[in-house]
């Protein structure tokens, strides 16, 4: 079986498992497991966003927690004003997820546009440091902004609504997260296969060659970075709704690191890498987190093993390397 077929089979398997396990939990009345699967799905959405920048474009953003946090605060602030019946910047609050998601994506996209425009002229360690610096600015801004809870964060008393679903029920919330994840994966696969993806992946490998072919690396990378931030911002809004809480911790640099770890564990640039990686991370947290406080140490060792012996992450290990043939 060639590696492309293998990868599709593996992807179908992962997608199936991520649906079957919470389905079983729903039937067996185990809401904790459903919520765990929802968390995996939402983390995976965030990582799908980062996978555009990091996986396709080779832009190692160490600040994607910024977009996660932005999305989270959009959801939190909208719900806060809806709950209290007050206005923000002349607009009423809302407890509807769809407009919240739209706003989260637009805002994240705009901020990613600014960050990208200022950082994409650099590369390597400088790029990593600049993206980190912007995320830290967001973190400290949220920390020192008392109107929305400051360091205490902002609770979402009633989970925001989605037409036709009862989002307060774990199973409904899972279905929503799962559907959005599938849509994001579809978008990722689509743009990767299209001319845009061909250009973005080429620029990662050889920007000088791309430029000599008339493809401007800066413009393509900037658009990739903006799309990347938008999807991670969407995940942030959903994450805040899942935990019904948003705080500056969502923008901490460790969160940016976790998103990178997810992608490396799952497989950089691979379609289902973020899903596999998120499942591994959450799985580790749950199983080893219960046994030892030092579960992150063990995770670090696994990460080291992946970097040294399985560069393609779990997907690469099981499905072989990518082929851009034809």
């Amino acid at each position, binding site marked *: 079986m060639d590696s492309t077929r293998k990868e599709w089979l593996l992807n179908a398997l992962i997608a199936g498992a991520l649906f079957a396990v919470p389905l079983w939990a729903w039937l067996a009345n185990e809401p904790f497991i459903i919520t765990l699967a929802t968390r995996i799905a939402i983390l995976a959405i965030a990582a799908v966003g980062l996978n555009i920048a990091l996986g396709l474009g080779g832009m190692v953003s160490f600040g994607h927690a910024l977009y996660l946090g932005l999305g989270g605060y959009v959801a939190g602030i909208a719900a806060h004003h809806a709950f209290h019946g007050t206005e923000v910047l002349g607009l009423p609050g809302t407890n509807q997820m769809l407009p919240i998601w739209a706003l989260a994506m637009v805002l994240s996209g705009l901020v990613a546009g600014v960050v990208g425009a200022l950082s994409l002229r650099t590369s390597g360690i400088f790029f990593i440091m600049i993206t980190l610096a912007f995320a830290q600015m967001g973190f400290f801004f949220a920390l020192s902004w008392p109107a929305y809870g400051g360091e205490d964060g902002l609770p979402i008393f009633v989970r925001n609504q989605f037409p036709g679903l009862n989002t307060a029920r774990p199973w409904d919330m899972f279905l929503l997260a799962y559907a959005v994840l599938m849509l994001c994966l579809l978008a990722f696969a*689509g743009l990767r296969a299209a*001319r845009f993806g*061909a*250009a973005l992946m080429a620029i990662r490998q050889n920007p*000088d*060659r791309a430029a000599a072919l*008339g493809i*401007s690396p800066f413009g*393509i990378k900037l658009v990739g970075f903006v799309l990347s931030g938008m999807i991670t911002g969407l995940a942030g809004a959903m994450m805040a709704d899942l935990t019904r809480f948003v705080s500056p911790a969502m923008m901490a640099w460790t969160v940016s690191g976790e998103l990178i770890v997810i992608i490396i564990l799952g497989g950089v640039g691979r379609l289902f890498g973020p899903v596999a990686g998120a499942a591994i991370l959450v799985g580790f947290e749950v199983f080893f987190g219960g046994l030892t406080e030092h579960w992150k140490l063990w995770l670090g060792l696994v990460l080291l093993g992946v970097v040294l012996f399985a560069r393609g992450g779990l997907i690469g290990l099981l499905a072989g390397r990518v082929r851009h*043939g034809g």
Partner: protein
Amino acid sequence: MADDILALHGLSRAFGALKATDDVSLTLRRGEIHALIGPNGAGKSTLMGLVSGKLAPDRGTVWLEGRDITRLSVAARARAGLGRSFQVSSLIPEYSALRNVMLALQGRAGHSYRFLRPVMRDQALISGARAILARVGLGPRASVEAAVLSHGERRLLEIAMALALSPKCFLLDEPMAGLGAEGTKQLVTFLHGLKQDAPILLIEHDMDAVFQLADRISVLVYGRIIATGSAAEIRANPQVRAVYLGTEDSL
């Protein structure tokens, strides 16, 4: 002149105290191969960098079909009609030969902000790329990754990518480097035909190839052009003999 496709006016570029390009002016006319020769470190690749836009000149201008392109980026110059190959093969290593050429066709069309249609279902792109690969003799190697092509095949793929740009002129930096006798012979024949597509500014160390191919030759020494002329004129030029080739019999 109307027949000048490419014109360089007084280009200079220094690296610190080193004048790598020193007041260079030259033209490339429709239908010709203009060879640029000179000893190692003479500044040939630097000049190529100034023309392609990789390097900014300290002084001077670059004109393409009467348009000043000196301020354009590398990508904008490529879209304006410069098709270059690199001295050290510069390909997209993980892409197959076919996809490398498809990327060039995509760059030529200027349609890289398309998010929906898969390139591998774009028959125009695929058949266009296949035709170009066939023309340089890489047809059977279309699905091989660039990283595992042989050195000679990589040189040909460089040319195929330049060809895919349907440029107004070609800038080829030592396309024969490391090709061996047989490969060089084939490439000489190929370049002879290629100049009908567009004129070629050719950097080359292989003197036999240069004298067979070039309609005009410019000799670059320490960043300066010391002579320009036909093969016969260059052969006969005493300054060239003395400064560049040293020994008389090597011409």
